[in-house]
């Protein structure tokens, strides 16, 4: 059965070659569809200090997610992730109460991100921020 041996050998070769071909198809397609890391780079973002009056909040996109910048009535500038730590809704700034409210399940945070009430398990994540020469730099 010379044919049987030959067939077995060719079958093994073909299986190997087909696996290589499949890898050569899957890898480019995966790379093509994979989210791009450079789009989520944590570049620094600058705001003019005059754009943010005391007691106000400013929402912006940071590192591919939502973030918020607050100047407390005392004048301190805080940058936080705006994503609620409960289920990931975006918190809202309540100017009259000077706190954050998550509209999904009424989680409340202080302007520096500490949980006041409601279901959130953790405070809002802090983002580094610095103020110099009338400019607020986030990141």
């Amino acid at each position, binding site marked *: 059965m010379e044919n049987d041996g030959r067939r077995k050998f060719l079958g093994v070769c073909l299986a190997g070659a087909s696996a290589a071909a499949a890898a050569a198809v899957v890898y*480019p*397609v995966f*790379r*093509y*569809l*994979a989210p*791009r890391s450079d789009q989520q780079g944590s570049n620094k973002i600058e705001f003019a200090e005059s754009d943010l009056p005391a007691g106000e909040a400013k929402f912006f996109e940071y590192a591919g997610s939502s973030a918020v910048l607050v100047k407390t009535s005392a004048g301190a500038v805080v940058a936080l992730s705006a994503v609620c730590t409960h289920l990931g809704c975006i918190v809202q700034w309540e100017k009259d109460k000077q706190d954050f409210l998550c509209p999904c399940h009424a989680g409340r945070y202080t302007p520096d991100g500490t949980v006041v009430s409601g279901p959130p398990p953790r405070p809002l994540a802090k983002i580094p921020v610095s103020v110099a020469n009338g400019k607020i730099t986030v990141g």
Partner: protein
Amino acid sequence: MALIKRLYNWLDLRIGAKEIVEQELTGYLLPKNINEWYSLGSVLLVIFTLQVVTGLLLLVYYVPDAEKAFKSVTYIMNELPYGWLIRLCHAVGSNMMVAVLIMHMLSTLFMKSYKSPRELNWLTGFMLFTLVQGISLTGYLLPWSQLSFWATTVATNSAAAIPVVGPYLVEFLRGSKLVGPATLGRFFALHVGVIPAVIAGLIGAHLFCLKRTGISTPPFGANTETGTHWSPEHYRYESHPGGIPFFPNYALQDLTSISVYFAVFLAVVFFAPNLLFTPDAFVPANAFQTPAHIKPEWYFLANYQTLKIFPSELLGLSVQAAAMTFLALLPFIDRSPERNPFKRPLFLACFFGGFLLWVGLSVWGHYS
């Protein structure tokens, strides 16, 4: 191996897999003198699948908006990892699909497999041919480059030669007086939605006809009858007792042909993609600037040249329409049962004459 056998057994007990395999694969017998040309249909199926897959991948990033289309294609080609590969595969693949389809039709013509009872195979195939031309034409506009914009302007404009309704037909095709954002919208819908669905349906019909009539016997080779023995009184499946099984023999031929196709296709993708792209393909569409020497794609060059050589566009268009109708209805016109081309010198002369005429017109169109 044992595991696969057990799984196969398990499946067989439930859905009768062995019976299907016996009937459709190992027991599906093909004519003994079957040749390589019969594998082109399988190659075309693979090409169409590849076009669908690469097309879906392009859809992930392509934006069908006149303001953004060119930029999104540039982004795919330059910024995305392997975006260039997927885009080139789609663009080169469309040309390959037309080329292989023409080869498939030429082999069918030469071996006269279109003759009764296979009129429907030929007709569905012919419709697929025009649809593939249509999907190529509509897809050509989507990158919104100078090349695609002006090629579409010229192509849609030829419909204006039709009497009475011509000018309105052109406007209807374009969705506006001139090619513009409205044209992109409808061509996009046709290219990614309507035409692929119709093509898929027709492929189903084409394969259904093939399964019901059976594979035709090549009209040459030793000890073979070369005439059709079909009598129009009753339905008969053309079986090939003692022929070679589809699986594994002819399936391996299909795979060989598909691999050879891929070698040619990938060689073009990697080494000569600019066969298809003139520099105008990389300049964004500009409605105020017609580039010099705008030419249609190679498979439309013969049509283009025909329009040019006749004194009136209507005449040129009519000649093309007549030629296409003649080809489409060939099985009803050529009714002689003899299928060996070498026993039909007049047919043979027409076959080669027509092919050379088409090639000649294309070359003339390219250089004119």
